[in-house]
């Protein structure tokens, strides 16, 4: 059974002056999934999300949400968290939330209870009658998130949802997103934090310079990169690892390394070389991490290559 497509972006382009922000971009999002729109700063993520929300019109191409191209008809079923704070600074938190629900077609009285529940869950209950500008950046982000969810949307579009949140809140938001997914809602989020994306998304769309360079189910994408990457956790100075024979590419950080093996080379030889000089606590041969894929595809110098092979 093919999953129902909630959002379909087809050959969409958008140009600002001489900058081609989005270039013949196509992808689709299935109901009940979390899709990550990944890319570097300026890749065209935000522009794409704005077009989906009917804020910008595409220069070319079509966007269908819930099977229609009429953004006005479906906007009440979408929840949107913009990249930058989109709230009135001088307005009180509760008033603000009720206003946001009201412009999505809900009577304030009807959503008040739900707003209270959300505020409690996000630990903002005692701030409900404070003005927004009195809140910290992270708390403002949480208010914004409640605003995107309060009207019970079927499709939730989040532009950098974790920005400004501390680790505790990141975990909280992640679990909330998983709950929303379990309820059958569809989530499209953009991020450039690969580690975060890897923990929760089902599908990815990696865009670079306005084009999709990689798209599909996360696990499939990863395995398509083969199982020839060694993930190493250790104590000691691992700088030499990049020079070990058989290592085609290496990223060595403090106490962790991700080493891609050249075809035909032996992981055991690498392990033997490492054991002599480092205390190894973890050794795994697996698919490359999303971060590694990201850097290989869209990192410095990858532009030309990515432009040639528009995958999907």
């Amino acid at each position, binding site marked *: 059974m093919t999953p129902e497509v909630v959002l379909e972006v087809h050959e969409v382009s958008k140009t*600002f*002056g001489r900058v081609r922000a989005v270039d013949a971009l196509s992808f689709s999002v299935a109901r009940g999934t979390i899709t990550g729109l990944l890319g570097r700063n300026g890749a065209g993520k935000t522009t794409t999300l*704005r077009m989906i*929300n*009917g*804020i*910008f*019109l595409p220069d070319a191409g079509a966007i269908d949400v819930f099977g229609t191209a009429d953004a*006005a008809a479906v*906007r*009440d079923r*979408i929840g*949107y968290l*913009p990249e*930058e*704070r*989109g*709230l*009135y*600074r*001088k*307005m009180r938190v509760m008033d603000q939330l009720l*206003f*946001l629900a*009201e*412009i*999505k*077609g809900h009577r304030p009285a009807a959503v008040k209870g739900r707003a209270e529940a959300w505020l409690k869950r996000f630990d903002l209950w005692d701030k409900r009658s404070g003005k927004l500008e009195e809140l910290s950046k992270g708390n403002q982000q949480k208010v914004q998130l409640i*605003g995107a969810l309060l009207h019970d949307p079927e499709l939730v579009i989040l532009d950098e949802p974790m920005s400004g949140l501390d680790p505790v809140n990141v975990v909280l938001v992640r679990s909330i997103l998983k709950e929303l997914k379990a309820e059958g809602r569809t989530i499209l989020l953009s991020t450039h934090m690969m580690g975060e994306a890897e923990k929760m998304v089902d599908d990815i769309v990696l865009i670079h310079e306005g084009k999709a360079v990689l798209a599909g189910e996360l696990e499939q994408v990863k395995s398509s990169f083969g199982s020839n990457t060694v993930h190493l956790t250790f104590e000691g100075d691992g700088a030499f690892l990049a020079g070990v024979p058989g290592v085609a590419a290496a990223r060595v950080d403090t106490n962790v390394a991700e080493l891609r093996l050249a075809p035909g080379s032996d992981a055991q030889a690498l392990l033997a070389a490492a054991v002599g000089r480092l205390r190894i606590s973890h050794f795994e041969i697996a698919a490359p991490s999303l971060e590694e894929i990201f850097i290989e595809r869209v990192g410095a110098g990858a532009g030309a290559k990515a432009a040639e092979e528009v995958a999907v």
Partner: protein
Amino acid sequence: MSKAIAVLKREYLEVVRKKMFIIMTLIFPFLMAALMFVPTLLAVKGIQGKRVAVVDGTGKLQAAFGEREPTPAEQPASRAGKELSKRAESQPGVRALPLKTDYVPAAGDVKAAAQPFLERLRENDGDKRDRLDGVLVIPSDAFTNTDAKLLYYSRAVSDLMTEERLANAVNRALSRERLAGRGIDAAEADRLLKRLELEGVKVSKSGEEKKGGELSFLVGFIFAALLLFPTMIHGQEVMRGIVLEKTERVVEILISSMRSFDLLSGKVMGLALVGLTQIGAWLAMGALMAAYTGGAALVAGVNVFQAIDLRVIPWFFVFFLLGYLTFVCIYAVGGAISNSEKEAQQFMGPIMMVAMVPWMLAFPILQNPESTLATVLSLVPVFTPITMFMRVIVSEPPMWQIAASVALSIVTVIAFFWMTAKIFRVGILSYGKRPSPAELWRWLKVA
């Protein structure tokens, strides 16, 4: 529509809850009253304290000067009071000047007699008792020479009010003396010299006649101010609000949730309601004040209510709304095409200048409500609401002109609203980039 109402509620509550709004609403009438009356008061007060030396070369005019101080009842305290005192002064027998005069008869050499006083005027500082504000010299040939001139020396030649009063007093005294010279006694002279008062009476088609022209002029002025000031204050508020929504990116949420038409109409209606609230409060306060001071004025014999035709009140609301909405929409365009408050500020000056035009021309319009200037200005879009209202207050413009003014205003408001909605949609999200004409055209078709 319900979304527009949500925006309306938000905009209205945001402005009305502001301390600035509450303070402005409460003190503006007093501020206005102060602006109108304080200069008059000061001018009157300025005369009262004045001390003038009158050097009389004829030596026969003592009766006219300096016998008594003005009683408090004669001191005008307001414009209405001035009206009263003007009437009072023209009554025979009451000829007291609200000035202190030192009368010096100087038959012979007037110049020599005046010299010490001129010295005192020149040295005039410090000692209060010796202070002198002016010296009036009546030449000795005042009775015989028709070309003779009264000379008034003072440190400020701009004191027209004092000069006028002195000249009146001297001429009156001269006339009395001339008549006395022909054997006519003082009482008879007063009868002969009696000046009649002129009273303005406004006629209207309905046949009704109305007295108190000066006051209706004043009323026109006050109402024009009432019409204009909310526009000035809240129009800028619209512009600032829109720019703020842009810089704070709230606009993304708004635009992704509703049509820009709903957003704009909610905003404009919300602010119209704000304006009506304020105007309503002011009118209520004005009515209270009028009821209070009106009682006092009634005792004094002036009927303030005569000047206000209650039939103009509905017109007031009609023209207020039309004028207000016109400028709210103009300001909204300014906000939509600006990317920062600084940029928006550049639009404020010119828009305000345009809004001020009828106000700056209020004097000629109120004085000659049927003039070509008033008629033309009252039929030019943007200027029409305030100008036509001023005309309605002081005269009775032809009905077709009023209708044309209202129709023109409505068309103007709709045109500006439509334009604003379109520009709004394009301009509001052009972060730092001006939309290209092609883009603008595409939005015009879609929005």
